[in-house]
């Protein structure tokens, strides 16, 4: 029988911090991450051959990123680190991994889920064209690869990332043609009292906006995206929007980045059969936890943006808390006071995050529900909004899993990661409650796995 281990899934700020806090107490955790290097998306590191200064990579967050990276690098000998490793299945208290092209199975005694998040997408005409990317992708291209997603770009959607990415691109010398926000200025005014509690984060947001305006980069609020326009080469040539005043406007560009806030990545939690609840605040189904991040299954702890979007600073706190709660459960009861302090600090961050994500940059649900019939919703399978609406009418079903069975919605290679937010809204249609469409279930393997990995049999060891 293989020894069951403490396993951390994800090496972003939450996972890294959890590893540090476990090593500190003499534990030797297994850390599994899909990326080539630690850091998650926010503190992503380029490959060693393309290394740049922390200042160039992380801007204002350079010191914080460096501290985390140095801390994690320093414990390399005290953890079992599996980079570039895909967890494609989770069953009972075991995980199936693809590491170095080989399938492996790991048994866990305790599991910290720090699976992170990705952009929340609302499809618009032309969003599958070459040159159209998520805001997160635009940032990754710049940070990890030192490339822009186009020679001249437009960013649209909403959320803090919209302004941050625009600032980073313009600062890197790439032409930013416009920043187009679906949220109206008045939403920020309404949210102002809570936003002011954000301190440093809020100040940075104001700085980015002022910086963009000072460089005469058009920043439009309250817009509606109409179409990402293709050129003769079938790739992005521009974007057409409707202004707050109702006029059509076009911007030429060779790349667009868009997104509407972030969505927690919960597929492993789903495979583990954790209990979920629809969180109206986060507009998605999330694994439930107690006040200190313990999931519904004994020995599973939730941390970082994968447990609900709170941002990178909070991810460090929830990462550390997950490790401390785990240690508490193993008998270190003297940690109770520190756990309470961490939870109190996290709770104090919530009003700001709520004002940011749900008032100032609220998810434009109307836009999502009203995606035009001819727009592709599921980019893997090429399904359009009309296909989904028609099937819902024909079968009188609005349950996502039923519609999946009828249409292949979300059955493509991404397993719904990209389309589920929009598909939920389209299906909910006129229904007032987004949770009425049910929770979209995923299946193993959560990402494609080559059969070759199984030819040598299953390695029952870490």
């Amino acid at each position, binding site marked *: 029988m293989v020894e069951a281990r403490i396993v951390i899934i994800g090496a972003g700020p939450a996972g890294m911090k959890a590893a540090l806090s476990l090593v500190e107490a003499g534990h030797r955790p297994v850390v599994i991450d899909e990326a080539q290097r630690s850091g998650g998306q926010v503190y992503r590191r380029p490959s060693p051959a393309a290394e740049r200064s922390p200042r160039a990579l992380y801007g204002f967050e350079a010191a914080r990123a460096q501290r985390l990276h140095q801390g994690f690098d320093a414990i390399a000998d005290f953890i079992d680190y599996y980079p570039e490793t895909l967890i494609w299945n989770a069953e009972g208290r075991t995980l199936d991994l693809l590491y170095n092209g080989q399938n492996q199975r790991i048994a866990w005694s305790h599991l910290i889920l720090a699976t992170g998040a990705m952009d929340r997408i609302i499809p618009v005409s032309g969003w599958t064209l070459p040159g159209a990317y998520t805001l997160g*992708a635009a940032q990754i291209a710049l940070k990890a690869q030192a490339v822009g997603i186009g020679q001249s770009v437009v960013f649209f959607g909403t959320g803090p990332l919209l302004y941050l990415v625009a600032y980073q691109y313009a600062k890197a*010398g790439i032409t930013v043609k416009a920043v187009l926000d679906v949220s109206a200025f008045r939403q920020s005014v309404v949210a102002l009292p809570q936003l002011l509690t954000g301190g440093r984060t809020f100040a940075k947001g104001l700085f980015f906006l002022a910086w963009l305006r000072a460089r005469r980069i058009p920043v439009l609020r309250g817009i509606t995206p109409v179409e990402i326009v293709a050129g003769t080469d079938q790739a992005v040539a521009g974007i057409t929007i409707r202004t707050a005043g109702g006029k059509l406007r076009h911007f030429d560009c060779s790349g667009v980045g868009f997104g509407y806030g972030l969505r927690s990545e919960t597929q492993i939690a789903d495979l583990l059969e954790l209990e979920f609840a629809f969180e109206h605040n986060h507009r998605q189904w999330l694994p439930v936890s107690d006040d200190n991040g313990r999931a519904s299954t004994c020995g599973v702890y939730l941390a970082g943006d994968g447990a609900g979007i709170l941002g990178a600073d909070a991810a460090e706190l929830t990462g550390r808390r997950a490790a401390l709660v785990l240690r508490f459960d193993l008998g270190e009861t003297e940690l109770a006071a520190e756990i309470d302090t961490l939870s109190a600090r996290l709770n104090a961050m919530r009003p700001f995050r709520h004002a940011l994500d749900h008032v100032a940059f609220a998810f434009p649900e109307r836009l999502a529900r009203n995606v035009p019939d001819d727009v592709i919703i599921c980019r893997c399978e090429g399904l359009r909004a009309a296909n989904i609406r028609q099937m819902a009418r024909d079968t009188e079903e609005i349950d996502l899993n039923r519609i999946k069975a009828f249409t292949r919605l979300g059955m493509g290679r991404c397993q719904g990661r990209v389309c589920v937010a929009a598909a939920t809204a389209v299906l909910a249609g006129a229904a007032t409650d987004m949770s009425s469409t049910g929770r979209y279930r995923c299946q193993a393997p959560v990402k494609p796995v080559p059969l070759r990995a199984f030819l040598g049999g299953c390695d029952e060891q870490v």
Partner: protein
Amino acid sequence: MTSAGQFHRIPVSERREITCRVDGKPISVFEGDTVLTAVLTFRRDLREFEFSSDLRSGFCLMGACQDCWVRKSNGERIRACSTLVADGQEIVTQHGGKTDG
């Protein structure tokens, strides 16, 4: 480096140049580039969509959307956004495969 590609390089310090082939065509890229970066600094499309003549060039760049699968010359499928390009590597895109027979 100027080119007609989708991706636009920003000036960074010296990096080692390597060569790979995309659908048989040799291109000069940098060590540390992903396969996606290598291809898209030279052209705008990565591959053809399975169910129509639409072109695709990846989407999320973080290994989540699975929109950027291409092949090595031995037929092995790789995710272009999360695979680093190697010196001398042969990359076959679906698009190239179709047009070149």
